[in-house]
């Protein structure tokens, strides 16, 4: 029945206010996060692996040096890139990034910009001459829905793990000398957390959709909040119309989720710092 009439199969569960995998409508899947050298990328300056149920996303941050842009001489760059390789799901073909990957990359760039989580002026080393470029590569290893939440979480965790080496500019030669022994952690001002919802049949809202639920849904909403309860981004790319009240419900749920995620990140960071 599930393969023949997936929508009817789902409707039966939704009538009872629960989902086939046993979750409530407002319940998230089990979230686990691995930061830094414990099981993640050792060659990157910062990395994190996030698992949201089956959806697995890994983020690696590499810091490189570059000259800042002419019109913003005291700002560095953060360049996020989301990749959906064909190994994560049969719906993605290998080749140039598809629309979903590009839209996700743009979304992450917007979140970084809107939430001001990293002040670009902090990334500048010498005004007009040298600045850090943080290349954040977010790669999905297993796609089971809710890519945006997992990506934002992985990015946040990886950036918290980044240690930037001290850079001195040699006055005589004009070249930069990187001191790998002296490292300072990256200053993160805000901690944005994304919460995604799927809209069913114009009325029902379910949290943290799996890939199957996303396919059957008639629309999606993603809300990004930061610690103060401010909205960094309300992303609703089309889909069924929602009233203002329903949107308000989503926002309240997102704020609760933010607290849970923040607690999780703090716990993980505390557990790795003594090393």
């Amino acid at each position, binding site marked *: 029945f599930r393969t023949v009439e997936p929508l009817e199969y789902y409707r039966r569960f939704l009538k009872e206010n629960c989902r086939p995998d046993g979750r409530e409508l407002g319940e998230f899947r089990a979230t686990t996060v691995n930061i830094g050298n414990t099981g993640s990328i050792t060659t990157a300056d910062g990395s994190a692996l996030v698992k949201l149920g089956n959806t697995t996303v890994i983020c690696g941050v590499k810091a490189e040096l570059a000259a800042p842009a002419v019109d913003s001489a005291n700002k560095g760059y953060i360049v996020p890139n989301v990749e959906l390789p064909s190994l994560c799901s049969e719906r993605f073909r290998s080749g140039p990034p598809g*629309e*979903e990957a*590009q*839209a996700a*990359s*743009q*979304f992450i*760039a*917007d979140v970084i*910009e*809107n*939430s*001001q989580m990293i002040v670009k002026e902090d990334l500048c080393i010498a005004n007009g001459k040298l600045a850090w470029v943080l290349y954040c590569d977010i790669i999905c290893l297993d796609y089971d829905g809710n890519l945006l939440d997992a990506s934002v979480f992985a990015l946040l965790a990886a950036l918290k793990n980044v240690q930037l080496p001290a850079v001195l500019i040699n006055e005589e030669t004009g070249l930069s000398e990187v001191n790998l022994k002296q490292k300072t952690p990256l200053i993160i001002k805000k901690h944005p957390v994304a919460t995604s919802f799927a809209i069913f049949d114009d009325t029902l809202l379910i949290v943290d959709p799996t890939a199957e639920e996303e396919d059957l849904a*008639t*629309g999606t909403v993603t809300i990004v909040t*930061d610690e103060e*309860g*401010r*909205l*960094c*981004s*309300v*992303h*609703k*790319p*089309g*889909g*069924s*119309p*929602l*009233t*203002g009240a329903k*949107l*308000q419900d989503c*926002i309240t749920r997102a704020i609760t989720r933010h607290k849970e995620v923040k607690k999780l990140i703090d716990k993980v960071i505390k557990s790795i710092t003594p090393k």
Partner: protein
Amino acid sequence: PCLSPGDTSVLAGLYGPAEAKLSKELPDRAALEVLLRPKVGLPGVLERSREQQLRQTCEAVVLGALHPRTAITLVLQVLSDAGSLLSCCLNAACMALLDAGLPLCSLFCGVTCALGPDGAITLDPTARQEQEARAVLTFAIDSRERKVLMTTTKGSCSVEEMQQCLAAAQRAADTVFQFYRDSLRRRYSK
């Protein structure tokens, strides 16, 4: 608040329902494709993201089930950008859908709100107002019950401010829908 607020103008061309390529055709509904071309340069990641938003907004209103296995292509060319670009694209897309006579379940319109540093709400901001604003929110409002079809935000704002912007946008939507009615009346009364 009108279709080209200030000097922003977008040209929209709609082609369809036409025969779809085998790889792109869907068995039960029409396949919608949106192409957004910026004024200068090649389309990049930002255009792709805008295309996805426009496509899903149009898919929600177009009754695709009446034209299965066909392709509807919407091409938008930005002629000039003086602020509120995304809502201009939304309005152009809706008018193109109307002009082509495609079956729609409702109309939609795009409204942009800018939140100034002092909390003042400006509708249809110019490029300079957008830059000075603390946050810029774009909504696509549908014509039947003024519900929200699409939202995008730039910059951060509080929840109350977002609700206020939404209410203001819903009120402004009435003016835009009246404009649609007037332009169509002019077109078909000749």
